[in-house]
Structure formats: C-alpha cells, structure tokens
C-alpha cells in the first residue's frame, strides 16, 4: 500500500513537472539557440550509434527473411517486408531504446549533476527559472530529435537490406523497390511510424529530465536516477508501442 501511494505520488509529481516544462516551451522560440545546442548533445551525439544499429538491423532482417521467403519462392517481397517491419515497428522502437540508453541517460546524469552541484538552486537564486532555461530546451530537443533519428534508422536499414538482399543474395533490384512502392502506404505505415517515434521522443525525454530533476542530489542518487531512466523509458516505450499499434492497425 505504501509502495503504491509512493509510486502514485511520483507519477503525479512527474505529471505536474511535465506541465511546467510544457509551459516553458513557448518561451524557447525566442531563445532557439538554447534548443539548437541541446539538439547537438541529444541528437547529433546519438546519430552514430543509430546509423550503425540501423544498418545492421536491416542487413540481419534481409538475411533472415531471405531464407524463409526463398522456401516459398517469394523473395521479391523481401524489400517490402523489411521496409514494413522497419517503418512500422523496429525503426521507432529500436531507435527509441538506443535513444534512451545514449541520450536519456546522459540527460538525467547532466541534470542530476547540476542539481547535486547546486547549479539549479543557483539559477533559482539568480531569479532564473531552471525549468525554463535548463529543462525545457533539453526536453524539446529530445522531442525534435527522436523522429529524425527513427527515420534515419529505417532509411539506412532499408539500404542495408538492399545491399544484402540485392547485391549479395541476388534479389531483383526492380522487384525490391516496386514491391515496396506497391505495398507500403505513406499514411498508414510511414506517417504512423513517425507519430510513434514522436510519442516515444516525448516519453523518453520526459522520463529523463524528470529523473534528473527529481533525483537525490548525491553521487549515488544521480547514478540511481540514470539507471531508472534507462529502465523506465525502455519499458514505457515498449508498452506504449503496444498501445499505439493496437490503435493504429486494429
């Protein structure tokens, strides 16, 4: 019972905090430089791992599907199947998991350290709201970066599948693309994938900034908060993926 009320209290605090962060976002359009700086540390720093992971996921998918499809003589559909799995599921989800591990944990640690070293208190005493200046730009940068990263993941995954499927295994290049263009719908598949990754971006950034802001301001507290960010946001992304998929493709 006590655990439950504790969890609900935290959830409530996190929600109120999200409200405060949202309220700080309109102001950021006057200081967009703050956001650009954070897109660098949140997005650009996650770029490499996303691209490499996307490439390999696409290549593995192509290999696996090729051997299954070849038993039905349906290897022409390889590109379409890879594209659908990437755009609908793997792109948004895996990119969000990587994002939580790379950028989310870094955000929590950075904000937690700023709290532990009294930088956030210091800003407050300088009559500067740290939620507006420190938290909101990081949150917004995460929300902006996530759909872009997921799109890159999917796109490079398709290229990886092309290189394995067409160049290595001999699937017809024309069939590869024409099947994709015939069966993958822009609104149904691509746009829904973008919506998913946007939602994941909000969730991961929210958890990351909240855990950092709410952590116990000691070395141990920051370390625990960082771990919690990765665990909670991974679970939240997977659970939310189920909900979104059920809504979008029922």
């Amino acid at each position, binding site marked *: 019972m006590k655990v439950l009320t504790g969890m609900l209290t935290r959830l409530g605090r996190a929600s109120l905090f999200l409200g405060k962060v949202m309220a700080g976002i309109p102001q950021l359009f006057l200081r967009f430089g703050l956001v650009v700086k954070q897109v660098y540390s949140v997005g650009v720093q996650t770029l490499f791992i996303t691209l490499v992971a996307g490439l390999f996921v696409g290549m593995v998918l192509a290999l696996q599907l090729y051997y299954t499809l070849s038993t039905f003589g349906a290897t022409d559909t390889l590109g379409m199947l890879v594209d659908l799995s990437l755009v609908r599921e793997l792109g948004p989800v895996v990119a969000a998991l990587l994002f939580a591990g790379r950028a989310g944990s870094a955000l929590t640690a950075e904000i937690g350290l700023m709290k532990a070293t009294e930088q956030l208190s210091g800003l407050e005493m300088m009559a500067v709201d740290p939620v507006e200046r420190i938290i909101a730009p990081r949150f917004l940068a995460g929300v902006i970066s996530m*759909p872009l990263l997921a799109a890159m993941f999917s*796109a490079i995954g398709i290229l990886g599948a092309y290189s394995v499927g067409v160049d290595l295994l001999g699937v017809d290049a024309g069939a590869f693309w024409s099947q994709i263009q015939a069966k993958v719908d822009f609104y149904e598949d691509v746009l829904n994938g973008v919506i998913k990754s946007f939602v994941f971006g909000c969730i991961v950034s929210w958890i990351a900034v909240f855990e950092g802001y709410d952590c116990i301001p000691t070395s141990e507290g920051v370390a625990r908060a960082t771990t919690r960010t990765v665990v909670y946001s991974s679970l939240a992304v997977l659970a939310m993926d189920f909900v979104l998929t059920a809504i979008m493709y029922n």
Partner: protein
Amino acid sequence: MLRSIELSVGIFVGIGLAALFMLAMQASNLSSFTSDGAYQVSARFDNIGGLKVKSAVKVSGVKVGQVAEIDYDNETFEAVVVMNIDEKFDKFPRDTIASIFTSGLLGEQYIGLEPGGDDKLLANQSEIRHTQSAMVLEQLIGQFLFSKSKENK
C-alpha cells in the same frame, strides 16, 4: 565552437529530413499514384474475391490505375468497383473487358483490363459492361473434380 555545433546540428536535421523524404518517396506508395490527373470508370462483378481499395488496375501487366471504391448494389446483388485510371491512358475502347486476376498462386488480386475493338472510348464516369469475376480457388477445384468425374463415366 558555437558555429561548429550549429553546423553539425544542421547536418543532423538535414540527414533526418532526407531520411524521412526517402521513406516517403522511395520507400512507400506516395510517389507511385495520385488520384488527381485520373478519370473514373466503374465495373460490376458477381464476385470480387479479395480485391481491396488501392488494389492495382493493370493492362498487359502495366499498372494504369487503382481501385478507388468498392460498394455493393442491393438491387442487382453485384459488387460495384470504381477505379481511378491515370489520364495518360485514355484510349480504352468501350467494350474493354475487366477481369479480376490473382498475381501468382497466393498473391494479391488486381483488375486486369483487356481492350476490345470498339471505336468509341471509355469516358470519365462510364461503366465497363463486360466483366469477369474473381476465380475462387474452392470453386475451381470443385469444377475440376466435377469435370474429372464426368470424364471417368
């Protein structure tokens, strides 16, 4: 320092948008067919099988349009299929035959058009008179067994 951050963020956003653009144009159907620049033709079938909205309309194996709408006529007990056909292909004779085919053994279904010999052409909102329904696998097997048993008599 600040300039190089701005540059790398610019590159990052650029690659991201390019990837989105590729997903939209190259890796989905967005570029392949749009309904503007198309004219509509309808056809009636006894059975459309697994035909769906957005299924392809092909002539000689070339895609010329897609299914825009599928409805059921309560009076005649027939399926009514409306197709969008690209206006580039506007010389179909009036007696063109529309059939529902299956691509491959287990593939999806599409409408195949076979141009006839009439001088008059199909116009926008006109109807194709000659149609052939989808082959249903169970019926085919039934017919095959039926004819076999007749042979054996």
